[in-house]
């Protein structure tokens, strides 16, 4: 299984996002889901996905997992934190700073909605053939 590749910087996905939003999905909840552009970006999607299967991950663990730089991870993690998708706890472990991230219930729901949206796109395409 291929591991997640190096994460690229945020792309201008406005046109694609517009198309995605237009898809009439079959969300589990009934209504077509809206595309969450906050986690549509690859690095943020990777952070949320990794935290979804772990109770918590440190900054260094996420950096290694996402194969990205300190600055890039820091910026994107902060965007997720501001949206309430993750929480960030800073502490010291033997005088070494330790930053730990956790997925919030809001973030978990956002990931589930995003998964629904992707599935809806695939369904819509298959039904359209």
């Amino acid at each position, binding site marked *: *299984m291929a591991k*997640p590749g190096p994460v690229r910087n945020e792309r201008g996905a406005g046109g694609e996002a517009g198309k995605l939003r237009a898809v009439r999905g079959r969300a589990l909840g009934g209504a077509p889901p809206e595309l969450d552009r906050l986690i549509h970006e690859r690095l943020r999607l990777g952070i949320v996905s*990794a935290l979804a299967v*772990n109770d918590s*991950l440190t900054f260094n663990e996420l950096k290694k*997992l996402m194969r990205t730089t300190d600055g890039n991870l820091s910026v994107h993690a902060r965007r997720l934190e501001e949206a309430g998708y993750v929480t960030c706890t800073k502490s010291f472990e033997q005088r070494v700073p330790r930053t730990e991230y956790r997925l919030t219930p809001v973030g978990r729901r956002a990931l589930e909605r995003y998964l629904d949206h992707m*599935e809806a796109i695939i369904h819509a395409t*298959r039904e359209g053939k």
Partner: protein
Amino acid sequence: MATVTPLRQPDNDPPAPALHARAMDNLAFIRDTMETAGKFTAVSGWGMVLVGFTALAAAAVAAQQPTPQRWLFTWLAAAVFAPVIQLLAIAYKLRTADTPLLQGSARKFLLSFVPPMLAGALLTVVFYRADLVPMLPALWLLLYGSAIVAAGAFSVQIVPVLGAAFMLAGAVAFFAPPEWNNWIMAAAFGGLHVGFGVPIARRYGG
């Protein structure tokens, strides 16, 4: 004046991937990330090993049975014990990992696993009434394999591979002579469970 050569050659650009291809790529990315980041699967490797030994014992007993009906009842008895063993093993594994049984990926795993198994139970009755008992091993293996493949979408990669191996065994059983049925059942339900159970237990927490 010097000529200007555009850096991008529009005619040579590959076409943009289709929307559904991007969606599938995103889903694959999420799954890859989860698998790489996760070190745990709800599936109990040791539970699978126990189920495998139960199947090997059932195969030995079933081989001694004089009629197809008694052969069938032997395997049905094993089919009742196997999920009980696996569920108890999963519950134990999740309890030791402090994860509630019906939460998150474990819940999705069970919800994906159960429907093909219920279909298998119903079709077993239909095949039995239609006097198609020799076809049952292929049916069981295919449906069990498809249940594992479906449920394995929410687990580590080795789990859907196990499901595919069962489906392959089922396909072989459909075209093999009926007298091979018991061997195929022993190899699949016994051998595959033990063969995959040990690495799952070692790599993914029990």
